[in-house]
């Protein structure tokens, strides 16, 4: 566990560096294989045309590749393994396809400190855009357990 840091509460609105990532067909196929969705064959082309419909958690992978969790840990000045993933949600606004170039923009939307429970929650919101079109909006909540005393 780590000590609560009152600086954390000032991080609401903190914007992470945006980045771009290509939806690689090979990655989509590997996901389908991992989920054992090898049949029917007719669904695979559909998966590449509307990735979110077949693989609802795929966009999370783009953030992992970019090291977003490590970035969050760095901002909080704690080791990454103290971040517990508590909640995750996705809202699907428009389809995204294999080959699309996605722009990923994230920020810390809210910081909630629960001193009675010795835990601090960090809500991160992410927008996945194809051009200027918002394809997916996601929210990740990470929890950090803290020591009983805090500064």
């Amino acid at each position: 566990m780590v000590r609560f840091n009152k600086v954390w509460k000032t991080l609401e609105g903190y914007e992470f560096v945006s980045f771009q990532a290509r939806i690689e067909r090979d990655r989509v196929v590997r996901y389908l294989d991992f989920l054992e969705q090898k049949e029917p064959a007719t669904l695979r082309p559909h998966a590449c045309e509307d990735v979110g419909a077949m693989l609802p958690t795929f966009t999370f992978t783009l953030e992992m590749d970019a090291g977003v969790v490590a970035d969050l840990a760095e901002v909080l000045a704690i080791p990454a393994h103290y971040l517990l993933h508590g909640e995750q949600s996705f809202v699907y606004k428009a389809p995204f396809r294999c080959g699309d170039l996605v722009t990923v923009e994230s920020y810390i939307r809210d910081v909630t400190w629960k001193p009675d429970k010795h835990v601090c929650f960090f809500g991160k919101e992410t927008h996945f855009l194809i051009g200027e079109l918002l394809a997916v909006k996601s929210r990740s909540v990470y929890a950090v357990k803290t020591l009983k005393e805090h500064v």
Partner: protein
Amino acid sequence: METSRLEPALLRDMHQDELRAYAELSGDSNLIHLNRAQATLAGHPDVICHGMLSMTDIGSWLTRAMTGWQLEAFSCRFVAPMSVGTRLSIAEVCPEEDEMNSCEITINFSAKDNKSGDVKVIGRAYFRWPGASSSR
């Protein structure tokens, strides 16, 4: 009383090999999912499973069961850590009363440790029939 519309299912056994495979696939290589020493250093008794692995499997369960419907939103809360080797059983809970011929469906679900019965993941998904306008 509303009955569940989706067939319950047993998700994959999340043993260490599965966690490694998911870490490589997803890019989530946090050592608490891969290394016992790091997991215990972080305060866990053993390696814990990726919450997102369970959400990925739950997503697959949902999309297969709701073929033809358009997924609009999907959320999970990882209620409790899942130790390596956990196997979840997933089921729809609290089916919402839908109007006859509704074009929108809400699925509430709960995933329990198949051995202990402890709830590990809860969540919700919204589906819309393609072509119907969304009320959300």
